[in-house]
Each structure stands twice: as structure tokens, then as C-alpha cells.
């Protein structure tokens, strides 16, 4: 009985993994094949010639490097906006029992109730009025708005996972509320906060719709790729897909490392 359950569970896991991994494999395969191999029919499921030619072609085509640079600036700026705004809110939700805490919690999630498509048009109009349309700042503001609910709620639960008594002990040992936070709470919450920051990076890196709406001549990498996709050749699409895919996957592995095993114990 138990054995049958185990077998069933593993089969399900393998099917699910294959379901997600197969397209990723195809993209990777395409990105590292020669241009000719991509067009061969039937499709070769095993690469015969590993080649960096396709990726090189993508990286050096017009617009890739500038939009990559913009994407990196946007995600840095997104973090620089979302974390300083979100962390204090998260700490307040975790530690203080103030009037309207519940409402705040709900309204934080509520911002995600509106589809980005509804928000993007009026926001684009506002950005034009503020003279920041088609800029890194505009995209970052939008991405920060998308990431904030996530930052506030996950970090609030990370902070409430750190015992209040540790903070109080620090205060009886000579700390102010601020130094107690800096010396005790922050180091203990750091793995979780880092994981949360990486998620913000992934949100910003992957986001295409808002970025495509508020930019025109200065798109981020996903916006750029989406814009040229219709005219692009198959190798270009594979290479672009691979390029967008890799950083989030790598970072998700980092998150796992951060969340487990700091100071010999799991910090929830």
C-alpha cells in the first residue's frame, strides 16, 4: 500500500517535472544548436554540434545589449524602491497591533486584484504628464508597485518568525529599538529577506507587459524581445528565450540555499 503510494507520488513528480522541463530543454537545445540544426526536420532531440553561434548572434543583434543593461538598471532600481518601502511596512505588520492592521494587510493584497492591463494605460498617461515616460524610472516604479505586496506580506511573516523576546532581550541589554533591530532581528531575518529580494528581482526581470506599455524607444530586455519577436528568426527566438530563462532558474536555486541552514538551524 505504502509502496504503491510512493510509486504513484514519484510518477506524478516525474510527469510534472517533465511537463515543465521539456520546453526548457527544447529552448536550451535550440539556443546551443547551429542555425541549420534548428531547421532540420524531424527535430534532433540530442545536440550533435554544440555551438555558441546562435547565442552570439542574439547577443550581438541590435538592441539586445542596451535593453539588457536597462533591464539590470530597472531591477536594481525596483529593489531600491520596493525594499525600503516594503520592509518597514512588513515590520510594522509583524510587530505592532495597530488599528487598521488587518485592513492594511487586505489592501496590500488588493492592489494585485486589478490586472496590470487596467493599471498600465492610466499609469502610462500619468508618466507622460510627469515627463518620465519611456524611462527606467517609469518601469521601476511599476515593477516596485507589482512587487510591494509580495515584499510586505512575505517579509511580515519572516519578521514575525523571529521571536519578540530576542528583541526585548537586546533592549534590556542596552539596545534601542533601532539597534535591537539592526543587531538581532535583521541578521536573523536576513536569509528570508534575501530570498524575498531575489523574488523581486525575478518579478522585475520577467515582467513584460507593463514594461512594453510604458516604454517605446527604451525597452527592457523582455519588452525588446516581445517587440521584435514577429520579425525574428527561429534561432533568435530560442536564444532570447534561453537568455530570459537562465537568471530566474539560477536565482531560485540561490533562494533554496538562503532559506535552509544558516547558523546550523532552519529559520522559518
Amino acid at each position, binding site marked *: 500500500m505504502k509502496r504503491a503510494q510512493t510509486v504513484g507520488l514519484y510518477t506524478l513528480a516525474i510527469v510534472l517535472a517533465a511537463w515543465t522541463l521539456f520546453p526548457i530543454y527544447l529552448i536550451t537545445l535550440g539556443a546551443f544548436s547551429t542555425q541549420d540544426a534548428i531547421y532540420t526536420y524531424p527535430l534532433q532531440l540530442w545536440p550533435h554540434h554544440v555551438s555558441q553561434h546562435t547565442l552570439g548572434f542574439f547577443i550581438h543583434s541590435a538592441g539586445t545589449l542596451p535593453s539588457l543593461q536597462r533591464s539590470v538598471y530597472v531591477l536594481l532600481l525596483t529593489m531600491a524602491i520596493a525594499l525600503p518601502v516594503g520592509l518597514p511596512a512588513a515590520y510594522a505588520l509583524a510587530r505592532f497591533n495597530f488599528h487598521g492592521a488587518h485592513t492594511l494587510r487586505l489592501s496590500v493584497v488588493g492592489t494585485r486584484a486589478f490586472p496590470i492591463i487596467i493599471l498600465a494605460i492610466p499609469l502610462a498617461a500619468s508618466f507622460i504628464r510627469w515627463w518620465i515616460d519611456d524611462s527606467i524610472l517609469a518601469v521601476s516604479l511599476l515593477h516596485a508597485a507589482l512587487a510591494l505586496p509580495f515584499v510586505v506580506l512575505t517579509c511580515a511573516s519572516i519578521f514575525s518568525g523571529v521571536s519578540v523576546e*530576542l528583541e526585548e532581550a537586546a533592549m534590556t*541589554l*542596552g*539596545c534601542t529599538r533601532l539597534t535591537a533591530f539592526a543587531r538581532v532581528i535583521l541578521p536573523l531575518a536576513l536569509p528570508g529577506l534575501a530570498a524575498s529580494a531575489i523574488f523581486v528581482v525575478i518579478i522585475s526581470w520577467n515582467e513584460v507587459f507593463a514594461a512594453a506599455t510604458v516604454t517605446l524607444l527604451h525597452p527592457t530586455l523582455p519588452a525588446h524581445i516581445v517587440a521584435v519577436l514577429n520579425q525574428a528568426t527561429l534561432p533568435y527566438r530560442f536564444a532570447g528565450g534561453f537568455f530570459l530563462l537562465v537568471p530566474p532558474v539560477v536565482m531560485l536555486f540561490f533562494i533554496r540555499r538562503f532559506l535552509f541552514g544558516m*547558523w546550523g538551524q532552519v*529559520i522559518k
Partner: protein
Amino acid sequence: MAEVRFEAIRKTFGHVTAVDDVDLHVAEAEFVVLLGPSGCGKTTLLRCLAGLERVDSGRIFIGERDATDLPPRRRRISMVFQSYAVFPHMTVRENIAFGLRRQKQSDAVIKERVESVSGLLGITELLARYPAQISGGQRQRVAVARAIAIRSDVLLMDEPLSNLDALLRMQMRAELKALLHDLGTTTIYVTHDQTEALSMGDRIAVMNQGRIVQVDTPLAVYEHPSDKFVGDFVGTPPMNFLAARVETNGTGPTVRVGGGTFAIEQSDGLANRDLLLGIRAEAITVEAEPADGLIKAGVVVVEPLGSHNLITARAGGDLVKISVPNHVSPEPGDDIWLRFRLGQIRWLDRESGKVLADSSRSGV
């Protein structure tokens, strides 16, 4: 070292009054235990003294200073928490040194102080370890070491032994008492464990429903509880309380209790009212034969406890617990005759549960 004074402290949480008009004076170098059931306000009172809760009204003095509005770090207190609150991201050494670093002590002083307190608590070999790598009992020692390292005026302890297993708790109780006696620091110790309170404190402040109901030496709290609550809460088994009346007609005052009577010498203020007779289990002796002045009782159960036997017997409408030598073991259903030691009887008003003027208690 400093004395501590609470003056008319009141603290509410919403509609709940946690601490209700508490006055308490703790002398310099004194060890006072706040004892009471959970929810009685003892931990809240301690946290008010630490500055972790703000009082609604009243003043707190530490030494000559009015500390009511000071933040915790300016009160010159240190505290041992129930969960120990040892910082998990610091080694034992860094934990103990934490308060000293905040005091901006020199490295030499810190090193010397960390070594001396860790020696006192027997954790010198653990200094390089992280809290996750040591046992609960060792973490408890680290918490105490960290608290005494900063040489505060007042040491606060919030149920520090309650997370230890029974054997370790007894060991640590004795060790802690000796250590704190040597240090001579004014200590306020919160517990719900009356054995701990009796064995450790110079004085015990018994709390119930946000109020201090009695402050006395352990022996006085045990032998002369101020009301039925204290008699019930302190001591194992709890004090016996039997419905009684005192009658003065005829030869002299007699007590009518548990279906029998016995004579007493004087009855000032006791006659003709509903009373409770309070008596400890070991202040009753058991006779096998009836005689004048003995109360008849039927044995319900006998519990051998090694050093003595605990008899539960029914006298009239009341159950009585009697502590007898371990060779006295009547069978359930047997009749026994009880003698109440007159000097150890406490008289309480039946309705209020308060002790009446206690003539046997001179000089306290």
C-alpha cells in the same frame, strides 16, 4: 544593587486588567518571588519593571530614580526570559559579551567578565559554540550568564526554570539560589511553581487576579496564608478548609466541625458566625480509637509518598488531607479519629475567605 518600589501600578490590556493597584517594596539585595497562577499579572508586573510594558498609572522606582518613563536600557536592569532569548546567530561568548559591548566596556574588561561569569555557571567549554549546538539546560545557563555579566542593579527572572525537566530544575534551583545569594543582586523572580517560590525567595509576593494578596517570608506564607486562595495555592497538598462554627454556651468555647466537636481556649470574635477552619495536612494527627476532642473521619484513599503517607478522609461533609508517618496506613473505609493541633488552626470568614485576626501569630 538597588531597592525597587512599585507604587499603585495599574496596567490594562483592552478590557482586561492585568495589574490592579499594586504596591510592593523590594529591599536592596533582597530576593522576592512573584508567585501566582497563570494570568494573575505577575509577568506583566515584571515587564512593567523592565520597561517592556508601559504602566497605565502608578510609579516605579529603581533605587532613588523614578524609572516609570525610562526605556529598558536606562533602567540598569537585566532580565532572564522564559524562552531564554539567547541570540541564535551569536556564539555563547558573543551572547554573554553582548550587554558589555553595549556598555562600551574595553576588550580586556569584556574578556575578564565573560570568563568569570561563564566559570560561575560552568559553561566555559561552551564559549565557542552556537546556541543551536548546546542543550536547553546549557542555553538557560547562557541566559543567566548574559544577564549577570552586565552587573545590573536589579535582576529580573521570568519563569527561568519552567522549560527544564524536573530533575534539572531542582538542580538548577539550588545552584541559582546559591549563585544569586553570593552575587547579592536585588532579584525579582516570577514563577507559578509554589515549590520554587518557597525554596528560593527571601520573601514571596502572592498574586491573584492582578492584585498582590500577601507578601511574606516563605514560612509565613505557608503557615499563615492571608486568605483561602493563598492557602490553596501554596503548599502540596493545599491547606484544608472545613466549614466550622464556634459555640460558647456551657463550659467553654467549643468548635463544631466535620460532625464532631472539640474545645478551644478562647473564642474572641469567632462565636456565632460562619467560619472556615484552615489547617495544614501535617498539623493533624490520626488516632485509631475515639476519645474526647477527636473528630471522626472515614478513610477515602491512602497515597504512600515514600517519606510519608497522604490520607484523604471524609469528616462530615468535608474532605480532609492528612499527612502521616509512612508506617500509618489505614485501609479505605476504615474509621479514624483526627486531632487538630490547636496552635496551627487558622480561622477564616466563610463568605469572604479572609483570615480573621490571627492570635497565634505574634510578632509578625
